[in-house]
């Protein structure tokens, strides 16, 4: 078990936390501009960041790891094991994250446009879900039976 954990960890080291990407395009542009004038012209136009596995990973590391474990590996049955999350039930994922469920807090007010989709992409990438499932955009899923 430990060996498994370590093996996962080693492969993920370079992918883990960096400066969090929880900021709007405008903020990112302003910051980049302050740090390097050359980029200011190209990032000044506010637009929603494109959802990505990498953004999802960075979000996961600063906000989710403490309960759901490193690389989704948790050994606590008091915290949901995201390795078992059904790939076909994106609506349940979005509802759980934004509204909270049991000990899971409501993250809706904290999330930036694209961030929830990024988390979904990241979880799918760790779990090896088919890309066709994970690439669906939010808000159009058919209603599903509440799973809890």
């Amino acid at each position, binding site marked *: *078990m430990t060996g498994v954990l370590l093996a996962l960890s*080693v492969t993920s080291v370079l992918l883990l936390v960096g400066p*969090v990407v929880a900021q709007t395009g405008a903020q990112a542009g302003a910051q980049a501009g302050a740090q390097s004038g050359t980029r200011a012209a190209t990032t000044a136009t506010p637009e929603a960041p494109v959802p990505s596995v990498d953004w999802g990973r960075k979000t996961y590391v600063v906000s989710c790891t403490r309960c759901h474990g490193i690389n989704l590996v948790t*050994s606590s049955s*008091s915290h949901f094991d995201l390795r078992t999350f059904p790939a076909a039930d994106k609506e349940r994922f979005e509802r759980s994250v934004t509204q*909270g469920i049991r000990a899971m807090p409501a993250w809706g007010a904290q999330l930036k446009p694209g961030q929830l989709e990024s988390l979904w992409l990241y979880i799918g990438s760790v779990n090896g879900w088919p890309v066709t499932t994970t690439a669906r955009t939010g808000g159009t899923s058919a209603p599903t039976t509440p799973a809890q």
Partner: protein
Amino acid sequence: MNHSLRALRALRQSARPAVMAAACGLALTTITAMAPAAAQSMADLARDASTPGNVTTYGMGWGQQRHTPMTQVTPANVKKLSPVWNYSLDNSANASTQPLVIDGMMYIASHSHTMAIDALTGRQKWKTPIELPADINGFLCCGIHSRGLAVLNGVLYRTTIDAHVMAVNMTDGKQMWKVKAADYKQGYSMTHAPLIAGQGDKAVLITGISGGEYGIRGFINGWDLKTGEKKWTRFTTAMPGEPGGDSWKPGMADRGGAPTWLTGTYDPELDLVYWGTGNGAPWNAASRGGDSLYINSVLAIRPGTGEIVWHYQTSPGDPYDYDGTNELVLADLPINGMPTKVVMQASRNGFFYVLDRRNGNLLKADQFAKKVNWASGIDLKTGRPIDTPMTVKVRVTEEMKETVDVWPSAFGGKNWMPMSYDPTRRVAYFNTINQGMTVKYVKQERPGGANWWLGLELAGFPAPEDGNRGSLVAWDVAAGKKLWETNAKSPNWSGVLSTATGLVFTGTPTGQFKAFDSKTGKELWSFQTGSGITGLPIAWEHKGKQYITITSGAATVWAALSGDPELTNVPGGGSVWTFALQP
């Protein structure tokens, strides 16, 4: 801790006017409604450790020795210990709360409720909910905890996880006052029991703050017991221009952490409160620079004013999350043949510290953790750790290319679960952790919101070769040596209780409440509860019969994050268990 009779008499005398003043200060119409169920005075709190009947303080005494003089339960009869009742806490948080017991009533704080139970039957008398915001759990670094209560003159005092302090009428559970200590949306939370300390009518309610992983600025508050008015604030990071202000990089101290998230101890003779501070924010030491005062320190504080009388930093400039918040147990010890008033701590950093509590002088610092690779020892002359080459490098490297394996991990050689101390044998009993962590330091801006600010990549937690991630240890404090060590595959995430009859009680993360022989560490009794145990065992007595109570219920950050394979089949669900000898 034994107080002299003279000091006790002085306390009794000074406590009486305080009660009178409290009564006179109330509006006439409310006196009946607010009449105390029992007249706990400051003298009652001072006596808590030596009186086995009631439990009126967090720690079973201001010195937090968690040792009972009770005589009925012994190594010879402990096998007859049986459950008397079980009470549901109706949640799946950590049941890490220490109940109080006063004249046959038990008072309990969970994160969602305050409760009163008939201690003999387990039947609820009242239960008062606490309203909490829907996003609050995101601001809790390490699971949902509410660790207990303080009590004085018929009023219960507690903190809430959204950083409020409140007073509750012991008789009916009704709220008397509630004040906001800090804005939870800035990363502040509260999970500890308050402390009541001070001389006579100058006694105040003292609380700390959590949030070291969110970039808060730590503080300790003194509150007016009657009104909730804030009397003082003692910030625990030193700003530019203040003593210690130059131990930070510019601009880092005002978000520099040093949270004060566990309950302090109190010596009424010296009139000093001892309170620990936690990690710097971010964990990345090179981002903060210098010692970062007063992170990871023991502070001696004057309860009337909040003045820092002395400080001792266990982990200067700490990069490893070795909070100095672990319980600061008070005792009288012979040091070099001289009876000495000491304060002791088994620190997260793996060393057991003994300080002269009059002045903060370091007397002893001995390694108790099985594996320590960040320091080769503590220099008793300077009081500073002797860094290994790894730590020398980590302190100055804000961005790393490779990971390092650090022992002990951020969980520490021991975490918050408090020890017991037998003042007769002069032995401390505590639960240890033996696990490393693999980390790589990276520069990180403070993200804000409910997001961690560590300044490192957490890549894993290597286990020890023998697979024993924890142990229960008996520690000879004066000698600085282990007397025995009972290994466990998973570390016990529970407090310890010891008895004058030679028993040590603690709980396992897989739910067994156990009794050990305090002389040998041999397991003598075990009872399977419904969840993992994160609670703090207490012993109490009513109508001539002695009882032991523990809360069960685990949803720990250890289980979530450490990769410990032993805990995958432990359900959540909090409840209270009370045990007594059956004929």
